[in-house]
């Protein structure tokens, strides 16, 4: 894709104009906000902007880890639409489906942000509430990957722009390409379609649901059943990862404990789970930490050309803008170069050195942004030594980057996306709904707040720690962090906790019962009572395990399972079987409830 200077300018101008107009419209919002959950133009614009924010770099890496997640999206949409409590509960319910969602590298399996923002708006305006939201939000999430591909292509063109600035030795130009030039286009790409979809879609969905409610009420019931069943898909997707390595029994412990205790606060469950994890690790750890094989790389001595402040300034740029120009060609390459700009500015004075430095770091790069920061730290240390006269060529710096970015992404994704985010969100969802998750119609703000604080502490704390240690110790920091088996103990413990929490969540979120009943010789027999006499929550457990089996053993795609579940939910609501109404009279009911 070739874009010349003029076209580029026009594109940016038009996008900026649109951006301003939308903000102006949005500012008028509070005054025009209707008391009922209607999506007017201003509300729709704000929802679009919020969706853009969730992709944007303006929140110190809390966009993707916090704003993009349905629990938070639901909270914000609820706030905007004047239904905070309901929004939180809806967000929590949608989030179940995405607890096991992992975007590794540049692969994006579905779009939790879209499901969260648009799904909550449509569920609120359509009156679906927390219990029916998933049936609408689930399929919506599948659409998101469409825009992702376009964004990844266009951002490649912005990287070419940065190449030219680098050729000119223009440090500011490279930085601006990353954090300014990349944004207007993305704003338009993310905010406008979502705002339009909310504005046009909300009345359409509301109308459709009203029509269905009047003409075929059982379909509405079917959507509620489907929502309760879709939660099982979310849990099963997690189990696909967690059900291994001898920790799977903890899922059943979590399930049974919650099932017997009824509504139980997930924070309480988390404390029980952590205790179990500690016990598990103590009993299974063979105590033979790998015999420190490290040809212990000597800690380096800094030459003093850089101060702690310089290193911190570089980190800040990375923290905010690591993904702002994420693209197919170089992925985080431009983000890396941007982070290095304060270092290059400080260390190199000749145009030649600056140009070489910028070009050196504009190449392909991709790692996990928090823990991967150890690579950047080590590279900063190498740049400092090089500037001080040490014999370090481009190849040496490149090989540290290309060698370490993969492994650090592997460790980082395992810890952050595989453990911290699912567990923190699971607890947050529990707090949000006070332990009665599937049935809560209003949520508690404590849940989303807990998530924000915990994820921020991890992202900022661990991020800076990794970065600083990388700088202090050079690449030896990597082995020092990984050595001694601490990490593998933490991973084993998190497996225990994860399984345990998923068990608890399954009870709280997965809703499936049957209303079937009949009378024989005056005795009423309810099928659900018979099932309960075996075990409470037998159907939800069976559903989770069946979906897990389909995913893990039959390799069925989650999309197909989602479609099947919604279909089964709706078909299961067709009233053609005998059941009882509240007064014990025989009526027609569906297979499921």
């Amino acid at each position, binding site marked *: 894709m070739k874009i010349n200077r003029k076209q580029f300018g026009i594109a940016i101008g038009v996008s900026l104009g649109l951006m301003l107009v939308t903000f102006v419209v949005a500012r008028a919002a509070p005054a025009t906000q209707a008391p009922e959950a209607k999506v007017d133009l201003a509300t729709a614009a704000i929802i679009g902007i919020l969706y853009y924010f969730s992709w944007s770099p303006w929140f110190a890496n809390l966009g993707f880890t916090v704003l993009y997640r349905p629990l938070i999206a639901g909270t914000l949409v609820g706030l905007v639409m004047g239904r905070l409590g309901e929004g939180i509960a809806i967000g929590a319910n949608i989030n179940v489906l995405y607890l096991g969602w992992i975007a590794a590298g540049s*692969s994006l*399996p579905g779009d939790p942000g879209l499901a969260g923002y648009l799904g909550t708006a449509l569920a609120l305006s359509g009156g679906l509430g927390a219990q029916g939201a998933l049936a609408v939000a689930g399929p919506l999430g599948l659409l998101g990957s469409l825009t992702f591909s376009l964004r990844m292509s266009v951002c490649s063109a912005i990287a070419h722009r940065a190449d030219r600035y680098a050729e000119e030795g223009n440090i500011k130009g490279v930085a601006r390409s990353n954090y300014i030039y990349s944004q207007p286009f993305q704003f338009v790409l993310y905010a406008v379609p979502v705002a339009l979809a909310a504005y046009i879609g909300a009345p359409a969905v509301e109308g459709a649901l009203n029509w269905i409610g009047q003409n075929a009420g059982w379909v509405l019931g079917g959507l509620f059943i489907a929502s309760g069943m879709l939660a099982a898909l979310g849990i099963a997707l997690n189990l696909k990862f967690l059900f291994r390595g001898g920790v799977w029994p903890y899922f059943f412990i979590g399930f049974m404990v919650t099932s017997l205790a009824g509504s139980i606060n997930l924070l309480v469950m988390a404390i029980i789970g952590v205790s179990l994890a500690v016990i598990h690790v103590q009993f299974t750890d063979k105590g033979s930490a790998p015999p420190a094989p490290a040809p212990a790389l000597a800690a380096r001595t800094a030459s003093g050309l850089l101060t702690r402040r310089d290193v911190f300034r570089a980190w800040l740029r990375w923290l905010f803008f690591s993904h702002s120009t994420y693209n197919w060609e170089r992925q985080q390459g431009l983000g890396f170069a941007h982070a290095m700009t304060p270092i290059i500015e400080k260390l190199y004075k000749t145009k030649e050195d600056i140009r070489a430095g910028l070009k050196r770091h504009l190449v392909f790069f991709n790692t996990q942004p928090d823990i991967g920061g150890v690579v950047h730290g080590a590279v900063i240390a190498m740049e400092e030594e090089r500037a001080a006269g040490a014999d370090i060529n481009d190849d040496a710096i490149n090989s540290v980057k*290309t060698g370490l970015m993969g492994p650090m992404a592997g460790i980082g994704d395992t810890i952050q996306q595989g453990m911290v985010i699912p567990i923190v969100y699971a607890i947050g969802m529990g707090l949000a709904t006070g332990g009665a998750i599937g049935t809560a119609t209003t949520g508690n703000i404590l849940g989303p707040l807990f998530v924000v604080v915990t994820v921020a502490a991890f992202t900022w704390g661990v991020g800076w720690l990794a970065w600083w240690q990388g700088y202090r110790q050079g690449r030896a920091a990597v082995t020092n962090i990984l050595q001694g088996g601490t990490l593998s103990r933490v991973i084993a413990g998190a497996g225990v906790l994860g399984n345990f929490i998923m068990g608890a969540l399954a009870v709280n979120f997965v809703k499936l019962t049957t209303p079937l009943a009949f009378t024989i010789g005056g005795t009423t027999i309810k099928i659900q009572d018979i099932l309960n006499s075996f075990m409470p929550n037998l159907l939800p457990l069976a559903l989770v395990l069946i979906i897990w089996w389909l995913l893990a053993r039959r390799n069925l795609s989650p999309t197909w399972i989602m479609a099947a579940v919604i279909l089964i939910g709706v078909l299961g609501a067709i009233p053609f079987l005998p059941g009882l109404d509240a007064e014990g009279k025989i009526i027609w009911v569906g297979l499921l409830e």
Partner: protein
Amino acid sequence: MPSDTQSTIPDEHAALSALTKEVSAIKDFGLVRIDDRLIHGQVIIVWRRHRTFTRIVIVDDGVAADPFMQEVLKMAAPPDLQVEVYSVAQGIAVLTQDRVDRETTMVLVRSPQVARQLFDGGVIYRALNVGGLGLAPGRKNVFKSISISDDEIAILKYLMENGVDIAFYSVPGEKPKMLGDLIHRGNR
């Protein structure tokens, strides 16, 4: 001599068919993947969710000569996943003899060149996953996060002509792009 030939033909035939049988009976590797980042999230999280892997065999002369990187790669993998690093020569020796565990083994290489060296060295595989190749001088971005040079395309073509299915995609669930389609599109 004719009588000799006569008598050896059935033997040879039998031997050949036995060999063919043996070759087709060999289970394919769980995954043979080209990825210049080697071990990362896609490999140790997403692929492992999809299929059971017990070991990763990395074949790369550079890493085989770098104890620090070997250590990092081994520590980057979860405890229940064994990581082995070999040079190309060692890799051929190990992978041609290895008949067990193939289904749960992931073979990781950095470049099409190494994939071909393995193939020519007798490491039989029927499917090759091009999972990630970063932009580098000479390479052009062809599909999502995969950039590739003409020379590398030629190597993959050679493998394709020798019966290897070559698919470009980073993780399961993504729609793969087959090499045949890619070349076809490039020619138009």
